């Protein structure tokens, strides 16, 4: 097992003919992901790398039986693309697009909640169950199949962590980038819930950062509802207030949004917090085999 995606997951790509969409569709296929169709209104009826291109998601779902979609459309079209996916019966949506307006996401988030669909992102590298399925833009080869679940708000940080794990011969069950925006689909707790239930996942690494309070939420959830060992890292210690640190969501708007406050919350829930990025791999190794 793994969470969210596995070797049976059939995926379509919305925006398959754009630069990013085309490039990463090829990478996903190389990795073995079952990309069964693409959506691009303009190139409806054509094929791309042998994959049929449809004009609408509903058509794609009808013809291919896809359950998941990977979205590469422009920020102004992301809301429409996500809602189209929901409305067409897609159950897992991964939205790679960066720069989606937050008011659009507020609407989308309500729909997602109402319909019980899973959305990962936007502004995410995606999700990967190593050696089985990759939906997103992360480098596949740094991952290795195993028993550690990884959740992160940051793409590069998760690559860094995964790479440390793989170098130590520690594989991953599933790695989920929840996205760097203030409002995203799955939050930490949603992923934690799945990892807790997953038979394959034995240990969890959570990579947080400044901004919002998802880490506190995760800490609370961990204390109340989780039994698996877990460690965390929070980026942005000592970062200044009201300054956006790259990610739209990485901005400290109040005391509780600082890395310090988050680390305190995580530690007080019994989660081991790694202070140095250099030591995450080794920490996992130590905790996993102790």
């Amino acid at each position, binding site marked *: 097992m793994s969470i969210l995606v596995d070797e049976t997951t059939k995926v379509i790509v919305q925006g398959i003919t754009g630069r990013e969409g085309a490039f990463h569709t090829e990478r996903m296929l190389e990795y073995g992901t079952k990309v069964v169709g693409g959506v691009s209104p303009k190139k409806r009826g054509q094929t791309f790398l042998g994959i049929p291109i449809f004009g609408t998601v509903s058509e794609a779902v009808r013809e291919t039986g896809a359950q998941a979609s990977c979205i590469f459309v422009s*920020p*102004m079209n992301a809301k429409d693309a996500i809602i189209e996916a929901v409305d067409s019966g897609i159950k897992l949506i991964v939205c790679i697009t960066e*720069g*989606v*307006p*937050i*008011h659009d*996401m*507020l*609407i989308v*988030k*309500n729909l997602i909640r109402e319909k019980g669909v899973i959305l990962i992102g936007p502004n995410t590298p995606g999700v990967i169950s190593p050696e089985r399925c990759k939906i997103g*833009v*992360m*480098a596949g080869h*740094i991952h290795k199949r195993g028993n550690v679940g990884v959740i*992160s*708000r*940051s*793409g*590069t*940080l*998760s*690559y*860094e962590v995964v*790479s440390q794990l793989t170098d130590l011969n520690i594989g991953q069950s599933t790695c989920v980038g929840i996205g*760097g925006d*203030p*409002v995203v689909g799955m939050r930490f707790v949603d992923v934690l819930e799945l990892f807790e239930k997953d038979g394959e996942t034995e240990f969890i690494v959570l*990579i947080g*950062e*400044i*901004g*919002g*309070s998802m880490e506190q939420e995760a800490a609370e959830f961990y204390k109340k509802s989780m039994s698996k060992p877990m460690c965390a*890292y929070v*980026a*942005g*210690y*000592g*970062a*200044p207030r*009201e*300054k*956006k*640190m*790259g*990610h*739209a*969501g*990485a901005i400290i708007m*109040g005391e509780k949004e600082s*890395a310090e406050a988050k680390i305190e919350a995580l530690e007080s829930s019994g989660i081991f917090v790694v*202070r*140095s*990025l*250099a*030591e995450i791999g080794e920490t996992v190794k130590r905790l996993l085999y102790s």
Partner: protein
Amino acid sequence: MRIHEYQAKKILSEYSILVPPGFTVLSENELEEVANTLGFPLVVKAQIHGGGRGKARGIRIVRTIEELRSEVRSLLGKRLVTSQSGEEGKYVGKVLVETFEEVKEELYLAILVDRDVEGIRLIASKKGGVNIEDVFREDPSLILTELIDPRYGLLPYKIRRVFFSLGLDFALLEPFSALCEKLYRAFLEKECLLCEINPLAHVPNKGFVAIDAKMVIDDNALFRHKDLAEMYDPTQEDSRELNARASGINYVRLKGNVGCVANGAGLAMATMDLVRMAGKEPANFLDVGGGATKEMVSYGLRLVHSDENVKVIFVNVFGGILRCDTFAMGFKDASPHIYKPVIMRLSGTNAEEGLRIVKETGSAIIVRDLKEALEKLKEIKV
């Protein structure tokens, strides 16, 4: 994106929310006409991004033309240092000269995107005129909030709930409701992250008046708001940060002396953390981005290098979409201009090739991994 008070008030006026009559002044020449039109007393308000103007004498009441002249002169074209501006202060390119409204009671009203609940929040308090976070700390019961589901809009009952807790006279329910509805419409149509009126005053015979206003607009939504995008004021930002952004690089200047260069926002933050772990202070946050070219890399390195505070540069790159060899080519391009020491960690895609190129330049202390980087950072004297 922050906009100025005078811009926010202009937007509020478009939604027929009352603001004090006033003029935005760019030079002293206009003052006599402004005074004649408005009459005294007046209030002079420095137009800078960020709060704390009051205590920093950025807001001044004047009663004569001489006072007006001298106060405007002492603000216009100067930099105003406030508790929030940083020590270099903020440039005052415009002042707002307004009719001074004598108000008895100062209220607070705001609508904002609340990321924790992933919704929109209406906030009101009878304790306005001060920092709302302070009010919250001292007595949260003074702050009333209602969540708004954008699919259903701001419904009258939500306003009533807030209104009754404010303890205002019932006759004010209708004008208060109208005000909230207008503010919500502005918030929604301008895709704000925050619309704040603080203080909000009820002036007899006039109605509710926005004495001060603050608006933050979603950067990601600016593509569909040309008019708002034009309100952007580059004088309110660090020029280095501005130039970096123009080149597609995320850069935030900080106070330390270890320059940082990384790819990806998360890794850039973590890079700063490592500097702190080593007992040093980062001079900046810098993310060249996932899709960086060698030109961008070169530019980013030179930018960090040009900061006079920077004594050493820590490069932390994990190659992915940005391959290590591309990064190294950028480093090579920049290296003739770089004389400060550079600690470099290059991992991930094409690391070997990248390291080879970097070694050729002879301008960097190459470390194998983050641990060694940490040690080197600890060792180095800055």
